[in-house]
């Protein structure tokens, strides 16, 4: 049955903040194993909120969310246990500043998953090697650049061997020259079959990595399309309008 059950399944998810703001107004989405879903849309459209509902950082007010067919938005759910299976990386590279790179990587595996320190350490070194930071294991976060910190944050999420990875605008606070090194790591994960939900403003990146693009506006999914079609011929007027904001008219200087 495994292949038919979506890894992540959202049904009519509603998120209303206590001030009455409706961030999600009935969102349904199935993500299958090894699928990469790119979520785009104007700021405030609910795309980050959507990610945060999947690991329970935002409790929902309506609908349901299932992980591997099991509904997790019911009372009594142990969120720490769910979150151990759902990796998340945020916009702010939020390493724990009082711990070394290795300390950051070992915390969750040893405290949550109860993996032995030696085992977690060898996995950490292998993953650091993969993102090109094996020599920085004993450094403190403040000694790393933003791009390096964000790569460590990705490795920290991978240490728990998550079934799905949520990436929330992970390059939005980086200097432009550091965006590439972070996105290359994510491209590598996609090639290895990691299931991912990616919220991003990097349209070229979304186009290259995603199997499907979800376009959101005002708390709803407006359009779902393969990237080749979404970026060349979006169907909805709002998606067309949104994509237009990323292109510029050439300015022609006339001498006459």
């Amino acid at each position, binding site marked *: 049955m495994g292949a038919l059950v979506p890894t992540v399944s959202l049904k009519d998810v509603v998120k209303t903040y206590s001030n009455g703001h409706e961030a999600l107004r009935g969102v349904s989405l199935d993500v299958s194993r090894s699928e990469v879903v790119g979520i785009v849309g104007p700021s405030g459209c609910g795309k980050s909120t959507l990610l945060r509902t999947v690991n329970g*950082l935002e409790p929902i007010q309506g609908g349901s969310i299932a992980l591997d067919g099991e509904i997790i938005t019911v009372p009594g759910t142990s969120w720490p246990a769910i979150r151990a299976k759902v990796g998340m990386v945020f916009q702010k590279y*939020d390493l724990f*500043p009082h711990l070394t790179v290795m300390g950051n990587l070992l*915390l969750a595996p040893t405290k949550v998953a109860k993996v032995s320190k030696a085992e977690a350490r060898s996995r950490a070194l292998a993953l650091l090697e993969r993102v090109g930071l094996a020599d920085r294991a004993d450094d403190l976060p403040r000694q790393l650049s933003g791009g390096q910190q964000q790569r460590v944050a990705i490795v*920290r999420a991978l240490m728990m061997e998550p079934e799905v990875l949520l990436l929330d605008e992970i390059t939005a606070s980086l200097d432009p020259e550091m965006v590439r090194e972070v996105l290359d790591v994510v491209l590598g994960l996609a090639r290895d079959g990691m299931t991912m939900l990616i919220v991003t403003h990097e349209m070229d990146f979304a186009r290259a990595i995603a199997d499907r693009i979800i376009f959101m506006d005002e708390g709803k999914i407006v359009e779902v399309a393969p990237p080749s079609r979404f970026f060349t011929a979006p169907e909805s007027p709002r998606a067309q309008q949104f994509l237009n904001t990323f292109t510029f008219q050439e300015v022609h200087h006339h001498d006459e």
Partner: protein
Amino acid sequence: MPPSGLDVLFQGTNFLRLLGGLWVAARIALISMALSVLLGVPVGVLMTSRNRVIKAVTRVYLEFVRIMPQLVLLFVFYFYVTMILRVNLSGETSAIIIFTVWGTAELADLVRGAITSIPAHQYETGYALGLTPLQVQMHIVLPQSIRRLIPAAVNLVTRMIKTTSLVVLIGVVEVLKVAQQIIDFNRFTYPTASIWVYAVVFALYFITCYPISLLAKGLEKKWALSSQPSH
């Protein structure tokens, strides 16, 4: 040749008496600091409360203690509060009580600052990794708060030791009072004694406070959480 004022220090037990006076000052500071830590930590945690009444009460307490000069607090307590309450307290006990009232306020504010300085996304990152709220407190919030708190708390100790010089005015015989006694007693035999005796008092305060101040600086540097601004 007239006798040097420095000789006064080696007359009888004068130097030992000065050290004894320093110990009285240090004892007041250390006991007050210990009590301030015991009371200041819970009060500081209370200060982070969202309850408006608790917030207002702790705020008024902190501002009141900060605005009033310590000397005024000492006088009011030693001369009037004890009278109204009909209790008989020694100068040293009164000093410890007032220094504790002051130290608790200062330390509580440091605790409040250390806790609220931990950004919300540090908590969220911890939760997202599967840590329980208790684990987030234990492994992420507390270690960072303590790193911010301890250097500032150590600095508070030096401020307390310095401020103990005020208690001479409510009759406590601490290092400054002993110095005055020595000077007064030897006014005719050693007219220049005062400069030497005060120099020694200066040196004693320095020898006591400087290492503590260095310790605070060292800890602050060692535990810096974000990168130093580069030039």
